[in-house]
């Protein structure tokens, strides 16, 4: 803060003046910006001609919110206090808005949100003072996080796997045969597919540090490999699965070769283009892939040869159960669970092998790797190939689950989604990626169930439309709060005495 003149203004007053000035400036700027955008609106009138309408209240609301936000930003130092004040401001604005704009006069909602917001904003000030005092008092560097002992880790892992094995049966018992379908299929299987894809991509992005924006291509190769082999050659799923993996790995190497010399942004661009090429080929090579129409009636999964059909010779008949379509879903759940666990154990094992250490070394410093006799070309290619192989497995599972595939399932959005799971989870961390997949896939599914908002906004309000908006906001907040993902520390692959976590700021992100 610049030293004041001889005038006897205390720093607090000076700060308040400063904040008020900043807020006024922000209000002026937002007035200038919002006048043409918010205050003036053009809407068709009865004659279907555009007529100018004024919406002064919108403009004033925007100005007040922005000015308050700027005021808090200058007045408050600590991020907790700032977050609280901003949340309070949004809360109060929301309460006011429901009453004034949406015309909802439910006093509990309107009054409650406004009062809660005001309290939050006021509470931010004492929190800020205590926080800044505390931050001055405690300047000691934080100890690096210790890692759970290996027995604790294996205990948690066993419990987790046990819970996952029990999950479909518990759902079946709880919700019955019809009600459990949503939980096992939409939540269970869908999340596990993305856990597996995340773990596969984690090899490429998290361990080897090669940014891959076209991972969905390998997922597509696996899905089409199974679909075509099964429909054209009548091969069973268990034969197609390894073939699809090999096929995807082959394409992984094929992609790997041209991009070996590229790094960072350039690598990302070429992988992005590769994903698009595969998508376009699948769309346009109609003779092979049947184009947009996709491949129909892909043979469904069987219980090692026993089909999940009603009647004689079916799964239910064989085991003396009453036929129910949920049997197939439960089998699919266990299938993807097994595939995901195989991916996980293979990755964990690879990390302790020379190849896994070479991947991580490559992410840390490629030049040092070359000075230590590591063939970086082969190392990168194996990362691409193995990552692609697991994507291919997941793809053939997807095909056998859906029974129908077309190119629209393999767009860039899927790649971005998988990459977001890896980044949100913490690059290189297996458990982080699994958590991120649960949060992202499960979270967007859970946001479908926002029907209670209809009571707030009226019956024509469709909350499902807003789930991506809410989700995007949550992602932004996450990245501010934990920029390196849920699990940002790195677990060493080997130790002499004690396994200590490596702090996130030391771990490289890779340049490709």
């Amino acid at each position, binding site marked *: 803060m610049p030293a004041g003149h001889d005038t006897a203004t205390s720093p607090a007053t000076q700060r308040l003046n400063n904040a008020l000035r900043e807020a006024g400036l922000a209000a002026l700027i937002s007035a200038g910006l919002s006048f043409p955008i918010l205050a003036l609106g053009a809407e068709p009138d009865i004659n279907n001609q555009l007529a100018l309408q004024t919406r002064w209240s919108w403009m004033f609301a925007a100005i007040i919110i922005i000015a308050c936000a700027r005021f808090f930003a200058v007045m408050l130092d600590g991020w907790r206090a700032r977050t609280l004040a901003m949340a309070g401001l949004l809360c109060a604005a929301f309460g006011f808005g429901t009453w004034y704009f949406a015309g909802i006069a439910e006093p509990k909602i309107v009054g409650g949100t406004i009062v809660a917001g005001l309290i939050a904003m006021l509470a931010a000030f004492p929190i800020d003072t205590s926080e800044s005092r505390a931050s001055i008092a405690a300047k000691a560097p934080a100890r690096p996080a210790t890692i759970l002992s290996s027995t604790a880790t294996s205990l948690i892992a066993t419990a987790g796997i046990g819970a996952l094995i029990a999950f479909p049966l518990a759902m079946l018992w709880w919700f019955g045969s019809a009600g459990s379908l949503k939980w096992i299929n939409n939540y269970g299987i869908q999340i596990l597919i993305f856990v597996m894809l995340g773990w596969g991509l984690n090899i490429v992005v998290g361990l080897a540090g090669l940014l891959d924006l076209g991972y969905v291509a390998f997922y597509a190769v696996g899905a089409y490999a199974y679909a075509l082999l099964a429909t054209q050659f009548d091969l069973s799923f268990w034969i197609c699965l390894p073939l699809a993996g090999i096929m995807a790995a082959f394409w992984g190497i094929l992609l790997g070769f041209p991009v070996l010399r590229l790094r960072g942004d350039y690598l990302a661009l070429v992988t992005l283009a590769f994903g698009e090429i595969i998508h376009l080929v699948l769309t346009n090579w109609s003779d092979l892939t049947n184009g947009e129409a996709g491949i129909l009636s892909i043979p469904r999964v069987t219980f090692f040869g026993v089909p999940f059909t009603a009647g004689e010779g079916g799964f239910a008949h064989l085991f003396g159960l009453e036929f129910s379509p949920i049997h197939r879903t439960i089998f699919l759940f266990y299938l993807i669970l097994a595939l995901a666990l195989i991916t996980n154990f293979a990755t964990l094992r690879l990390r302790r092998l020379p190849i896994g*250490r070479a991947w991580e070394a490559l992410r840390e410093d490629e030049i040092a*790797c070359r000075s*230590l006799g*590591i063939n970086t070309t082969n190392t990168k290619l194996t990362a691409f190939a193995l990552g692609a192989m697991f994507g291919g497995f997941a793809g053939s599972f997807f095909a056998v689950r859906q029974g129908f595939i077309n190119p629209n399932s393999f767009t860039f959005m899927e790649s971005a989604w998988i990459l977001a799971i890896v980044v949100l989870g913490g690059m290189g961390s297996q458990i982080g990626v699994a958590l991120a997949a649960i949060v992202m896939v499960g979270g967007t599914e859970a946001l479908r169930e926002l029907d209670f908002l209809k009571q707030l906004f009226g019956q024509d309000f469709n909350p499902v439309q807003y789930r991506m908006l809410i989700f995007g906001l949550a992602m932004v907040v996450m990245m501010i709060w934990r920029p390196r993902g849920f699990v940002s520390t790195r677990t*060493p692959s080997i130790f002499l005495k004690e396994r200590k976590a490596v702090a996130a700021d030391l771990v490289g992100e890779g340049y490709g």
Partner: protein
Amino acid sequence: MRWQSDPLLHVEHLTMRFGGILAVNDLSFTAGRGDITALIGPNGAGKTTVFNCITGFYKPTQGRIAFARDGRADETDVAALTQTARRHARMASGDIYLLERMPDFEISGKAKVARTFQNIRLFQGMTVLENLIVAQHNPLMQASGWTVLGLLGVGPYRARERDAIEKAKFWLNKINLLERADDAAGDLPYGDQRRLEIARAMCMDPVLLCLDEPAAGLNPRETGDLNTLLCMLRDEQNTSLLLIEHDMNVVMQISDHVVVLDYGTKIADGAPAAIRSDPRVIAAYLGVADEDEAQAVAGERAGERT
């Protein structure tokens, strides 16, 4: 005079051009087996470029770099190998590698020429122990059956990994970092990072170790420890050293042979005592008034002519 009687590295007519800049100009020198050879010169003299050519990070514009891993490299054998398109041959006089034909990772992995970097290049996010294990990548890769056997959990990988840890512990003991084996390499103080980088290179069992300014940024006590370490590498490990160094205490105390570069050209080559009194080296390092330099050079030339 081992660089004449038993050389292991022959750099011949090495030239490196970057566009219009001539970084190294027709440089020839040899490094003796079991010697500490120092490559010195003012800033920008082209020392690091020579290193990058020897270790394969640059492809030299011209010249030959012959490396006799074991035994001697007879001139006739080197000439015969040069005629072929091969990089390496087991000749009557021992294994000969033509380094200018080899990619960097083969120079370090097969010819056993290891190096360190001027700006330390450790794997910062990996632990000290992991750094030393990564350096043993090639033998471990073989032991893990190129990952296949290791993934299945069969084969000699477990035992070989234990050996690798033992070797890492040996080197950690030598550089007094055993206590910090499980800490991240990036967490170590600067001097320890320098020593760790040398230990990491030594885990490859190099025949020739190239050190790019190992004493840069060290305090006098650390420099003394470094001298002891480097002499130990030479005397106990039978590793030949080639080092770039600005610290004349290090150079003069431990090196057996000094090569001086200025503007990419060799200006002196000999034992440390002779280099210390060489007028051209003094001129290049300290800078002298123009007429003094002219005189010194003229004197040298006169000396050469007679």
